[in-house]
């Protein structure tokens, strides 16, 4: 079956613009994660959903970041009033199990956001 799909693949935004990043997880996967990856670094956790419930948003850097998964499948990460420090690759991952940190994550190829 299809893997995790993210769109757009690349996004260039002017400082102050709002952006929306989309993630289509693997069908049937209960858990969905968003990570932020800076160049040369490992992924940093942003937020986690179990079905439609956002159970952990402790990694969101500021209140400009908002994520939703209203029907328990597709998720959107929204960044309002983008800043240059938001430039990074945003990775989405899904997992079959609800106890997500005890099972493998399946990652999409990410959205590379550049804020100019």
């Amino acid at each position, binding site marked *: 079956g299809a893997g995790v799909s993210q769109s757009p693949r690349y996004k260039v935004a002017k400082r102050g613009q709002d952006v929306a990043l989309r993630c289509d997880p693997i069908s049937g996967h209960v858990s969905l994660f968003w990570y932020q990856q800076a160049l*040369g670094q490992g992924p940093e956790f942003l937020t*986690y959903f179990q079905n439609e419930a956002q159970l952990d948003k402790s990694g969101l850097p500021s209140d400009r970041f908002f994520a939703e998964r209203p029907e328990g499948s597709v998720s959107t990460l929204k960044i309002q009033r983008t800043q240059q420090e938001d430039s990074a690759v945003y990775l989405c991952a899904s997992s079959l199990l609800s106890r997500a940190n005890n099972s493998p*994550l399946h990652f999409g190829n990410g959205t590379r956001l550049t804020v100019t």
Partner: protein
Amino acid sequence: SQQGEEDPQALSIQEGENATMNCSYKTSINNLQWYRQNSGRGLVHLILIRSNEREKHSGRLRVTLDTSKKSSSLLITASRAADTASYFCATGRTDSWGKLQFGAGTQVVVTP
């Protein structure tokens, strides 16, 4: 903040040689996972080792876990050019079962 720290940061070897990289972490964990990332791509899961396991194998991969030292190692035997990638360890903490925390990675280059 990143939980795991990989060592070395970079590794350059020739095809056929073995590659070993280490991961240290700070808190109590349920499991430790290793992932591979090719340039410009997402991460691919390699292997998961639980806190009550000491060693695990998958094909040319061998992972060890020493919870008393809070460390793990990943060995790739008989490396190939296609193994060129960044390798990350990720820990599932006992106090936060909803997320994995990744290290900064080891960049491995395998030359033919």
